[in-house]
């Protein structure tokens, strides 16, 4: 029976539309995943030496024990964002004569088989073998590594419960933030160092088996917590919740000023807010606002000669345009479930595309405004953001949509956004090149021959010209959609 279920799972993943239709994408992603895991493993191999460098004269194990909590914090974060819930398959299994307990157990265990679960093992196993075993012996190595792995897997089960319990609710996000801020922020601000507080526990792990036994018990408890929660809620109504119309769901009055396009922009906003995938895109974009903090505060990136680092253009493009690029690259795929609606209305396509333009530009404006506090680090950042913002909404947006219209693919908006490559094709990978290349193609020559600020002015001026020529430029993309409407609509109806 279990074998049959496993076989069904395998068939499902092989035959899913996103897999079969884009072998290329699958291969590329597989390669990337492998590369990433290799990096993690390499980092693990050199972890001992890195730690010696970081804290000279100290035992690497002591340093690691004091810092390992922050690894688990990071794991907590990425598990929250990346880990997928196994309930999606429940619907097709529940009605079969298989015990619920068996189904839940199978789904839970299957969820454990994922690259996320081997991260801790890959990172810390080499260290345990290189540093702990020779000095403290095999038992210490097993005790320590076992404790680490148990904590990592406890996080897995805990997260399954946590995400299902608080999924998509603001409360869940707030709680994750609170944990991170409390643990990371307190250390940063020097209130107390949580890492050092828990250090003795890991210290003990290399001396006795008590921590291992303890964390094993925690792991089992976490498993049963997830198990019993899923079992209790193994009804369609509980796990796949219907949402009620919420706040933010309303129309934006001012958008109606733009006529039919404004109306469509309102629709698009509702689409974004009411689907899981698009909502995650929006939330992530807000995170990316903080991207500048990495670069702008870093002394390595401070200017030497009155100009600024070339990479800031990239950062500016990202901060002011991340939502535009992230959301816009799947341009029509967002409407794959209702494309016929627009086809069937007079000037429906034109209105749809204008509306999408409007929402992309609108959100980009909001992000620009939100990014203004960076002026705290220097006026130059305001100029960089302003210029890249103008360039984004004047030029890049048309380029991006042009590329996005190359074989749009249907996608299900109610699935999560993380590692969900539905709707993604070769175009989405290739378009990064012109999107990031275009601003540099303008900026670099000007900055080379004159100076960086002339380069910025060039971006701003070209962007403004693009804005003035908006109707003309957008007409190109509207025409393209119009010409390809049959192909697009039949691919959205999955008739290929």
């Amino acid at each position, binding site marked *: 029976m279990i074998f049959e279920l496993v076989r069904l799972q395998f068939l499902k993943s092989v035959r899913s539309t996103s897999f079969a239709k884009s072998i290329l994408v699958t291969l590329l992603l597989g390669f990337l995943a492998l590369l990433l895991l290799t990096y993690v493993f390499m980092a693990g191999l050199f972890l001992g030496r890195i730690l010696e460098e970081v804290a000279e004269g100290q035992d690497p194990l002591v340093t690691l024990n004091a810092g390992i909590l922050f690894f688990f914090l990071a794991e907590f974060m990425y598990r929250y964002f990346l880990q997928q819930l196994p309930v999606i398959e429940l619907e097709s299994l529940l009605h079969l004569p298989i015990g619920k307990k068996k189904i839940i157990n199978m789904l839970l265990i299957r969820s454990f088989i994922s690259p996320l679960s081997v991260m801790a093992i890959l990172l810390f196993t080499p260290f345990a073998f290189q540093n702990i075993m020779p000095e403290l012996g095999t038992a210490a190595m097993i005790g320590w590594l076992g404790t680490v792995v148990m904590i990592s897997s406890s996080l897995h089960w805990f997260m399954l419960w946590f995400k299902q319990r608080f999924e998509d609710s603001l409360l869940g996000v707030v709680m994750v933030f609170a944990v991170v801020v409390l643990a990371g922020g307190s250390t940063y601000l020097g209130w107390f160092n949580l890492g050092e507080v828990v250090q003795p526990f890991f210290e003990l792990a290399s001396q006795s088996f008590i921590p291992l036994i303890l964390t094993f018990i925690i792991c089992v408890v976490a498993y049963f917590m997830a198990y019993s929660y899923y079992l209790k809620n193994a009804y369609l109504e509980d796990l796949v919740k*219907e*949402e*009620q*119309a919420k706040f933010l769901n309303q129309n934006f009055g001012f958008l109606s000023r733009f006529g*039919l396009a404004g*109306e469509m922009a309102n*629709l698009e906003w*509702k*689409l974004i807010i*009411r*689907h899981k995938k698009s909502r995650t895109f929006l939330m992530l974009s807000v995170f990316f606002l903080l991207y500048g903090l990495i670069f702008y505060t870093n002394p390595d990136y401070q200017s030497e000669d009155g100009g600024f680092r070339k990479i800031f253009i990239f950062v500016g493009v990202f901060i002011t345009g991340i939502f535009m690029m992230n959301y816009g690259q799947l341009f029509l795929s967002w409407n794959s*479930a*209702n*494309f*016929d*609606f627009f*086809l*069937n*209305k*007079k*000037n*429906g396509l034109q*209105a749809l595309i204008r509306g999408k333009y409007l929402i992309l530009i609108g959100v980009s404006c909001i992000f620009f405004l939100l990014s203004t506090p960076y002026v705290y680090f220097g006026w130059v950042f305001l100029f960089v953001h302003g210029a890249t913002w103008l360039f984004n909404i004047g030029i890049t947006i048309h380029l991006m949509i042009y590329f996005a219209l190359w074989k749009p693919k249907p996608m299900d*908006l109610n699935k999560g956004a993380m590692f969900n490559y539905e709707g993604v094709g070769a175009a989405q990978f290739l378009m990064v090149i012109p999107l990031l290349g275009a601003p540099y193609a303008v900026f670099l020559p000007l900055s080379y021959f004159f100076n960086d600020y002339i380069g910025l002015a060039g971006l701003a001026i070209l962007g403004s010209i693009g804005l003035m020529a908006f109707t003309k430029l957008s007409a190109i993309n509207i025409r393209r959609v119009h010409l390809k409407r*049959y192909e697009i*609509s*039949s691919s*959205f*109806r999955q008739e290929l």
Partner: protein
Amino acid sequence: MIQVIDLKKQYKEAVVLDVNQLDIPTSECFGLVGNNGAGKTTLFRIMLDLVRATSGHVLIEGEDVSKSENWKRKTGAYLDEHMLLAYLTPDEYFQTLGKLYNLSEQDLEMHLAKFKELFNDEICGKKKYIRDLSKGNMKKVGIAAALVGNPEVVFLDEPFENLDPSSQIRLKKLILHEKDDSKVTFLISSHDLNHVTEICDRIVLLEKGKIINDLRDKSAMMAELDAYFTG
């Protein structure tokens, strides 16, 4: 009103639709029947310019549907859920349509009042997205949406499917009423022979993409269809 001329649809070698000549006059209630895969939905989709014809033309009031868009104003359609904006509540959806068709609030209210009986208090004023409605209720929303804006032609694909018996009867009344009062031309495909023979003035039988029978005599319709489908 509608003319189909030498229409052909081919996927590689397979010809799925081959209609030489079909004229549908104004305010006719036109029924389309045929077994699964006969090409009913494909024909509707081509007539609505959702699918490209391999060759031939469809004219609505003399306009080639693939060449202009003016006919869309006069045409309403509900073929499947792809024509709904399922992430809206029914109220929001109707309001959106009202704006698209430049209807005033009162116009829209008057329009929806016609569907009061059919909706049975389960559609309007509910805080439920269309995607969470039952299939029957979704169909009702789609049919009401197809009739927004006083269209002259309305395409309905399997309108009776998924509806409960009383809704089916109410829908029949509604279609007949619209046809008599507003001279709306209906194109309806259905597997329910009782219903189509009752409301349609003319029924075309499709088999493997070809029109094999064009029935206009209301009294003989049922018997002929019965004979065909029982084989």
